[in-house]
C-alpha cells in the first residue's frame, strides 16, 4: 500500500516478534510448501537417473548402474541424511497443518486454532526426533 511517509524497515520486517499463532502457521505453511516444491525437482532429477540405467541388466545386477551409484553416493553423505531429516520435518508439519487448515475451512474448532497449531508443531517435533536414528543409521 502506498505510504505517505517511511516507517522504516520496522514496518515490513520488525513485527515478527508480535506475530500470533495463526500468522506463524501461515508463514510456516508457505515456507514448507515452497520447500516441498523445491524438493520435488531434486526428487525428479535423482529418480530420472533410473531412465539411463534401465535395461542394463548386468550393471543393475552388479549394482554399479547410474541410478544405484547416485543413490548410494547420496545416502553416504552426512549432509544428505541431515537434509532428509529436515525434509521429513517440513513434510510432516505441512501435512499436520494442512489437516488443521481443512478443519478451519470446515469451520470446525476455530476457537482452538492456535492450540491445533501448537499441537502440530509439537507432533512434528516428536516425529522428527523419533526418526533421527533411522535416518542417520550407518552414516557415521
Amino acid at each position, binding site marked *: *500500500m*502506498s*505510504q*505517505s*511517509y*517511511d*516507517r522504516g524497515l520496522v*514496518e515490513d520486517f520488525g*513485527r515478527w*516478534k*508480535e506475530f*500470533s*499463532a*495463526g*500468522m506463524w*502457521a*501461515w508463514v510456516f505453511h508457505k515456507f514448507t510448501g515452497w520447500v516441498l516444491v523445491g524438493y520435488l525437482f531434486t526428487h525428479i532429477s535423482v529418480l530420472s537417473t533410473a531412465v539411463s540405467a534401465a535395461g542394463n541388466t548386468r550393471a543393475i545386477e552388479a549394482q554399479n548402474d547410474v541410478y544405484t551409484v547416485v543413490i548410494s553416493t547420496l545416502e553416504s553423505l552426512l549432509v544428505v541424511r541431515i537434509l532428509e531429516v529436515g525434509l521429513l520435518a517440513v513434510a510432516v508439519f505441512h501435512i499436520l497443518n494442512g489437516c488443521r*487448515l481443512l478443519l*478451519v*475451512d*470446515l*469451520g470446525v474448532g*476455530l476457537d482452538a*486454532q*492456535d492450540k491445533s497449531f501448537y499441537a502440530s508443531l509439537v507432533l512434528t517435533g516428536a516425529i522428527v526426533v523419533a526418526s533421527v536414528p533411522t535416518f542417520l543409521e550407518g552414516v557415521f
Partner: protein
Amino acid sequence: MSTQIERERESETETESEADAVTELPSAQEARMRKKAEARADREERAREEAQERADAEDSYHLKVFRYDPEVEGKMEPRFDDFHVPYESGMTVLDALIYARDTFDSSLTFRHSCRQAICGSDALFVNGSQRLGCKTQLSDLDQPVRIEPLPHSEVEKDLVVDMEHFYDQMESVEPYFQTNDLPEGELEEQRQTPENREKVKMSTRCIWCGACMSSCNIAAGDNEYLGPAAINKAYRFAMDEREGEDMKQHRLNIIEQEHGVWRCQTQFSCTNVCPKDIPLTEHIQELKREAVKSNLKFW
C-alpha cells in the same frame, strides 16, 4: 480526572476570547489584562511543572508516541516522542494520550470521541498490536508503551490515519438492509426469528474502527481485497433470512469475486485484534462455504 480537563479547557477558551478583546481595550484595562494573563501563564507553568514532577515520581507510565506532521517543517521526519504520564487506577491508553495532549503538547493529534468502545475512532497500534485506545488498560501493557498509527494506511498526522479506503471497502458490500419480499399488508413488520438473530448477532457489533483491516496481511498486500470488516458486514446481511434468497445470491456474487472472500488465508489476525470480539475468520469461512454451495451443481 475528567473534571480537571474540563476546567483546563475552559480556561483555555477564556484566554483566547480575552486575548481577542485586549486589542480594542484602553491601556489601563489592557495593563490589567496583561497582568492577569501573566498570572495565568504563571499558574499554567506551575501546573505543568507539578504535572512533570508527579510524572517523574514512580507512579508514571512511559509512553512513546509516534509523531509526524507533513505540514510543519522539522516535523516531516517521523519520530517518537516520550511522555511520562502519572498513572491513575483504571487509566486507559486513550486517557494517557488525552493527558499528554492537555498537559504536555497540545499539538499531539489523535481521534477519539465516545471513550467507551462504541464510536470506533481510536484504533491505534499499541505495543505491536491493533487495539482500541479507550478499551486498553495501561496496566496490561509493558513499558514503554509504544503508540503508533494503524499500520498499512496513510498517516495524516501523528496518530491519525486516512480511513477513506476502509470506508470505500465497507460501502462496496452494500452495508444496508435490502429485500424484495416484503410481508403482506402495508404496516406488517419484517420479523426475524430469534435463532436467526442469534446467528448474525456477533456480526452486527462492528464499530468500523479498522483494526482488522490494518492487522490483515492480505489486505496490506492487496489493496482491492474487501477486508475482514467488509466481509463481516456482508455476512451480517447475507445470513439475515429476511432479505430473501435473491438478495443472498446478490450478496454472495459480490463477496466471491477475485478480491473477495477467497483472498482470506485464515491467519486469524483480524479475529485476534477485533475489539468487539467478532469471530471474523469464522464468518469469512462460512461465506466461503456458502459461496461454494451456491455454485455447486451436480447435474
